[in-house]
């Protein structure tokens, strides 16, 4: 445990002593802010237009019009930024040879995996936390529903954790960071759009595919629903990839 904490601290200090974390966080917040501004501006315009019609005005809903699409957009930005955070985690250790020392210290593979995983999750939490500025800003001028916002953020957090586990796994496969990054991006994008095939396959296959889709599980969070099905889905993805990662570290050793 204390050794995992040591890896965690070292990894976190690497993120914040190098420019990596700052650039990734800046891009995430900047793009997120741009999406947010556009959504609010559009909502503003729409509100003005429906003023004449009180019936329609009642149907105007900030959660649906701003936060649901915002969370969707943020998940796309995450798709692009998370591989940047995870790609060097293990591949760099192998490339620079530091893995040789690291794995001859009296620590287990899980100390390394979990230390690095949670350090990256921490960077992600900081990154996501900064976007809380958006609802906070909005609450000065309007009255957003905090429930769905909280669940939406929970959904994004779980999604990010799944992406990070995926990235850590791909980073363990290869000593080339770029390869690790591209594989993570490809894999994450695939699970994001896997649902598109549903209309063209049999019903039972379609059901499985839908369950595998990352986006589908995010939707209910954004609507304010915390379904155990979705929770288990994201936790499963994380655990699955972390487990694969530990298998890779083990097999790397046998193959040299």
């Amino acid at each position, binding site marked *: 445990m204390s*050794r995992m904490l*040591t890896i965690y601290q070292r990894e976190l200090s690497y993120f914040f*002593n*190098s420019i990596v974390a700052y650039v990734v966080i800046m891009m995430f917040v900047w793009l997120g802010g741009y999406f947010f501004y556009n959504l609010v501006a559009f909502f503003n315009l729409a509100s003005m237009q429906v003023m004449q019609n009180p019936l329609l005005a009642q149907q105007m809903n900030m959660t649906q019009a701003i936060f649901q699409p915002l969370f969707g957009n943020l998940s796309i930005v995450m798709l692009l930024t998370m591989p940047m955070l995870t790609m060097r985690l293990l591949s760099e250790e192998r490339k620079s*040879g*530091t893995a040789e020392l690291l*794995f001859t210290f009296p620590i287990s593979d899980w100390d390394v995996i979990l230390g690095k995983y949670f350090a990256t999750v921490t960077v992600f939490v900081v990154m996501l936390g900064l976007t809380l500025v958006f609802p906070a800003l909005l609450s000065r001028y309007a009255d957003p529903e905090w429930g769905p916002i909280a669940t939406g953020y929970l959904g994004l957090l779980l999604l990010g954790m799944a992406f990070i586990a995926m990235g850590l796994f791909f980073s363990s496969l290869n000593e080339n960071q770029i390869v690790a990054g591209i594989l993570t991006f490809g894999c994450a994008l695939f699970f994001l759009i896997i649902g598109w095939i549903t209309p063209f396959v049999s019903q039972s296959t379609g059901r499985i595919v839908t369950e595998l889709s990352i986006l589908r599980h995010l939707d209910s969070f954004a609507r304010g629903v915390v379904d155990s099905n979705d929770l288990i889905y994201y936790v499963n993805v994380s655990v699955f990839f972390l487990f694969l990662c530990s298998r890779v570290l083990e097999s790397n*050793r046998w193959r*040299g």
Partner: protein
Amino acid sequence: MIEVHNLSKHYGSNRVVSQINFRAEKGEILGFLGPNGAGKTTTMRMLTCYLPPTEGSARVAGFDILEQSLEVRRRIGYLPENVPLYGDLRVTNYLDFVGKLKGMPRKTRAASIERVMQQCGVSEVSHRQVGNLSRGYRQRVGLAQALINDPEVLILDEPTVGLDPRQIIEIRELIRKLAGDRTIILSTHILPEVSLLCDRVIIIDRGRLVAVDRPENLKSRLRRALVVELEARGDREGVMRCLRSLPDAQTVEHLGTSGTDIHRLRVESNLGKDIREAVSRALADNGFGLLSLAAADLSLEDIFVQLVTGEDEQ
């Protein structure tokens, strides 16, 4: 302290290390000698539990490298060949990081860091980033991290490679001082280093163990052919002919001429024959002047080449 039994590592059909056996006792400095790609690093990686062996077993500090890997790793200090350190950390932070990973409690850690920095002479760069250090300092920081938990077994892969001559002497002195009650295994392809540092030498070639012995024993064991170097006065052809006519002279080599008629020559005898007397008598009988005569010592280089090429012929 270290017992290696039939240790082998194969990659597919490529036998990188095959069937190596040796022991190292407490307080001993053991040298691994071999050309590049002989399997020195692979053997060390197996002993440090970085790579599992394909066959065979080894016990380090009393624990099995496969079954009790964590116990082994707790008791070793390892310096890999290219000294992979985290360049973004400062020396003290790096040593602290290693100390924590090696499970040292907070109380003893600070004192240990101070001690190893002193020992390895890196105190004056303690606040510099590891990545900005010169090769010599990096090497010493590498040695410091290996020493931090006061390990029973120290495994150093080419600890003096890439250092300038003064640094090499310093590191060697340090290693000798460290021996004491520790077991040290070091690999090198610099032969004099072995005779300077090691109590015993293991010569490895293409994954096989070619010889294990004390450096001086290796020398005497291999002094098969006696080499005589001499200076003689006379005409070059005459001297050469005279020496070649000796029954036990295998080769006669002309090394150089000084003045007009003083020749330096090297004569190699047949196995085990001392031909110094025969040489001096032959020269005197033929009226040449013998100015100096000495048996040349076989260097470890010669031994090494003999052993390694001897394997070739089999």
